[in-house]
């Protein structure tokens, strides 16, 4: 049994079919990535797992139990936490408050305090700026904060929506090394990316989404070297 099983998931926005019967699985301890172009349905997939958009068909199972139809809050309680696209830090809250609010459902004060220190170790920049309003941080720092905030919930599965979007290459490298580190510490990661190259390098397995359907799947390394994936997403083919 996989940790997360998505079976024939469909989502409609009005009359438009954003996802057409997609199926994939995430096993405990893995980094799984969904890659695909803009509008392929990557964000919609994560949003429907989180309960932010409701599915029009199919099921989502966590530990074998059906979780489609639950409230976002219940999904978070089960340890499935999303880092949304575009960071979405609370710009009107301080850096420290952003971390604290990530632990909103936790009641172990000592544990939360210890985890805040852990986040400061993981992201030293956040410690320097802990009193600043999150809206004043740079894009890279906001991404660090968004990841830290999600980790404060002690997720079993961390879902990340385009963490490298709009960031400088050096910071993208940092973000991916942090993703690997988080995974090594025992958190399962479901990552979606337009930066397919970086995502496939870090991922155990990958799925290629094209206009709402899974077109291909395989080990990260295999997809990275696959001719058709290279042509379509990695921009490595000779013109």
């Amino acid at each position, binding site marked *: 049994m996989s940790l997360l099983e998505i079976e024939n998931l469909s989502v409609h926005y009005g009359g438009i079919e954003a996802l057409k019967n997609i199926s994939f699985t995430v096993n405990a301890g893995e980094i799984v990535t969904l890659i695909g172009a803009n509008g392929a349905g990557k964000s919609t997939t994560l949003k429907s797992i989180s309960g*932010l958009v409701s599915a029009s068909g199919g099921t989502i199972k966590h530990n074998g139990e059906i979780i489609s139809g639950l409230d976002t809050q219940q999904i978070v309680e089960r340890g499935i936490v999303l880092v949304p696209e575009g960071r979405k830090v*609370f*710009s*009107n809250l301080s850096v420290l408050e952003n971390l604290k*609010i990530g632990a*909103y459902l936790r009641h172990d004060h000592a544990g939360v305090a210890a985890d805040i220190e852990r986040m400061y170790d993981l992201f030293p920049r956040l410690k320097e700026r802990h009193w600043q309003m999150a809206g004043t941080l740079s894009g890279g720092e906001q991404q660090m904060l968004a990841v830290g905030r999600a980790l404060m*919930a002690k997720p079993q599965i961390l879902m990340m929506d385009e963490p490298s979007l709009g960031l400088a290459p050096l910071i993208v490298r940092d973000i991916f090394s942090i993703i690997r580190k988080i995974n090594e510490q025992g958190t399962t990661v479901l990552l979606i990316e337009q930066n397919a190259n970086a995502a496939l390098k870090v991922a155990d397995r990958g799925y290629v989404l094209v206009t709402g359907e899974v077109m291909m799947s395989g080990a990260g390394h295999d997809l990275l070297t696959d001719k058709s994936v290279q042509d379509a997403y990695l921009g490595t083919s000779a013109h």
Partner: protein
Amino acid sequence: MTSTTIIQHILTGISLGGAYALIAIGYTLVYGILLLINFAHSDIFMMAGYFMVFAMAVMPWPIAIPLVIAVTIFLGVVIEKAAYKPLRAAPRMSIMISSIGVSYLLQNLATYLFSALPKGYPTISPLKRVFQIGSVSASLVTFLTPVLTLILVFILMYLINHTKLGMAMRAVSKDYDTAKLMGIKINQIISVTFVIGSAMAAIGSILYFTDRMSVTPFSGTLPGLKCFVAAVLGGIGSVPGAVLGGFIIGISETFLTAMGYSTYSDAFTFLLLILILIFRPTGLIGETVTDKV
């Protein structure tokens, strides 16, 4: 004007301003969370006036006051659940129109149930006791209103800025979806906002009507509009802004009346609204949040 009468008018103005501030807080909090101008708020305030009339008919004021506050809170929360919650995903205009509908519903309901004739507002005798300080004399309610307002605002600011609940309120006011991803129950936070706003309106109503003698189904309309102006003047969404706006409008209205321009005092308030919207739409202390994308 002698200095004594000036002090007297300042006192009256501050007192009126305090009541306005408490009502303005309801507008500003709901706007902060729902981006809704809750037109029904003025009528919740009016209904609180009627609740007090009926409560005081059968019980002493120490029991009547908490009961009236509780019933007003209940009314505010029910309105939110019935008229606003089903429209959560609808465009902002729909929910605003719904609030206008609720406003008229409450006014007509009050007219139907209590008739349009003014009902005498009960006297809470300790509030009417007259104090003499030097040559200035005023009733206790005049002294009490601004003090109580500041205490309540202080508690509210603490709640918003230093508690987990307040942090969740600020997060919800910024972004529903992301707040949900933190595990926050949006509807619960919105209900809390209506609880606070309605409680403040109930207290404001007791302080306001104690100086006014009577309640009619339309007693909420004009003070409600003025308090809305107060909230915009201070910067809608900001609690200190609403308080500042309430005091400015209360004091200027009192002075205009004292100088014999009572006919123009309402016009002045709305002129203030137009000027602030033209020259400083974010209000006197409304925040401009920096968002880096």
